[in-house]
């Protein structure tokens, strides 16, 4: 078996373990599915009249507009949950045992990220299904849905990289869990839940520069309109930036952990 195939098997096994772990523990699953679904229902029902505001982009319904925000929230929390699970593995010594196994170190982190990506994929399918079930249309059809699913999955992996880096650096589940409010702050300061032009200052200005706004607009675009190449490119570039940051931080944190133990 080639080294590449062997590493792919390791990544797959660790990814599957990560997904199963999330399904087994309600405290990891709830933030990914239950809370975003609850908030989607509450915000859609509570602020649905917002589509009548002057300046609101043309949409079929507020639910259609909010789907991208719900997916974004879910994937961000999936990244956070992945970080918590990795930190628990570190606390319990499981990761140390993996470090002594004859497998490359990057495969250990990549396995966790593959699991987070799989959860992002599941989340995107879940919210697309909910949207369709409650009458939201995917404007760009199947191709648009696939673009949204791809972007959500890639972003989950990218955000998971940052969660993994923090877990590797601190080795503490409670520290990673403490980032939960920060995830909410970053989300609120993006265009995940409302159009930028209708947000109140200073949230509007921050949202204009928040990389997550580019990602969320990329996910939302095919759901509410025809695919716009420019928005898609901006989303891909923003994801690439988050991936690069996550990789750099993870590599550094991993080196630090291996050095100091």
């Amino acid at each position, binding site marked *: 078996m080639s080294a590449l195939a062997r590493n792919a098997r390791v990544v797959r096994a660790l990814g599957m373990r990560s997904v199963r772990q999330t399904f087994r523990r309600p*405290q990891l699953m*709830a933030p990914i599915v239950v809370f975003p679904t609850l908030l989607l229902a509450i915000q859609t029902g509570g602020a649905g009249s917002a589509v009548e*505001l002057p300046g609101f982009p043309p949409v079929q319904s507020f639910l259609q507009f909010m789907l991208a925000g719900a997916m974004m929230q879910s994937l961000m929390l999936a990244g956070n949950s992945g970080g918590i699970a990795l930190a628990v593995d570190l606390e319990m010594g499981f990761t140390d045992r993996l470090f002594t196994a004859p497998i490359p170190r990057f495969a250990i982190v990549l396995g966790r990220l593959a699991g987070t990506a799989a959860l992002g994929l599941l989340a995107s399918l879940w919210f697309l299904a909910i949207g369709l079930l409650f009458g939201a249309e995917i404007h760009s059809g199947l191709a648009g849905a696939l673009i949204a699913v791809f972007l959500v999955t890639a972003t989950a992996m990218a955000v998971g990289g940052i969660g993994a880096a923090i877990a590797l650096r601190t080795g503490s589940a409670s520290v990673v869990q403490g980032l939960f409010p920060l995830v909410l702050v970053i989300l*609120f300061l993006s265009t995940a839940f409302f159009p930028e032009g209708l947000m109140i200052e200073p*949230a509007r200005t921050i949202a204009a520069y928040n990389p997550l706004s580019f990602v969320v607009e990329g996910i939302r675009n095919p759901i509410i309109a025809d695919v716009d190449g420019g928005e898609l490119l901006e989303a891909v570039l923003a994801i690439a930036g988050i991936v690069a940051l996550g990789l750099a931080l993870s590599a550094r944190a991993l080196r630090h952990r291996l050095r100091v133990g």
Partner: protein
Amino acid sequence: MEGVARVPQWRANLATIAALMARSRNELARVPGAAIPGLLAPTIFFLGLNGVFGALIQLRGFEANAYESFLVPVSMLQGAGFTGAASGVNLARDIEQGWTDRLLVSPAPRWVLLAGNVLGAGTRALLPATFVLLIALALGASWPGVAGLLVTYAMVVAMAAVAACWGSALALRFESQSAAPLMQAGTMALILFTPAYAPLTLLQPWLRSVAEANPVTEVLEAARQGFVGGVDWAGTWPGLLALLGLLAVLGAWALREMRRTAR
């Protein structure tokens, strides 16, 4: 036994409740980090929702002079909900670590043990509520007046007690901290499936129906009175009645679970 003064039962009960409440308060000093999510989450929701949905106030039918004023009672109640749910998580941890077993073999009545946990949550809820209120006032929320403030705080304390009954019942049923998401999601749903983001008339029809059936809508409307208008008895008693009903039902459930656990 001669020579030993018997402590009346009611005084012993009060002393036990006070001791359990003090233990609950001490946790704030011993583990300040544990209080941060309860403090931060409603504050982040308040600031975030205000920044995001603030423009809703431009909609026809929105009768409030500032979105901050409309939203702050929701965040105060949310803080109460998080605090109450956290007391359920703490009880689950106590069960896992065997501390509750020791309490259950003490001669203290079950309702006293439950009351200590529930009232402890009520007093702890004052902290996030005050924190969010100060931030909202600094951002321009209307001053609710002394009567308005008292009604709001009464609703907050009682709502935390309701959430603590819910959290305690679940903790005693599942005997595991894994039930924490259910505790938090339950209180979150109860508080937010109301006219939390917009008045009843502006809600989507399905949410309006849910909100009209949800007793916490009356609690929220009572807590909101001072911030968006005047306070009167007609706007207050439905909230009090709703809280009494919720406390009776969830308190009875939690007590039943405690008796089952003891058996």
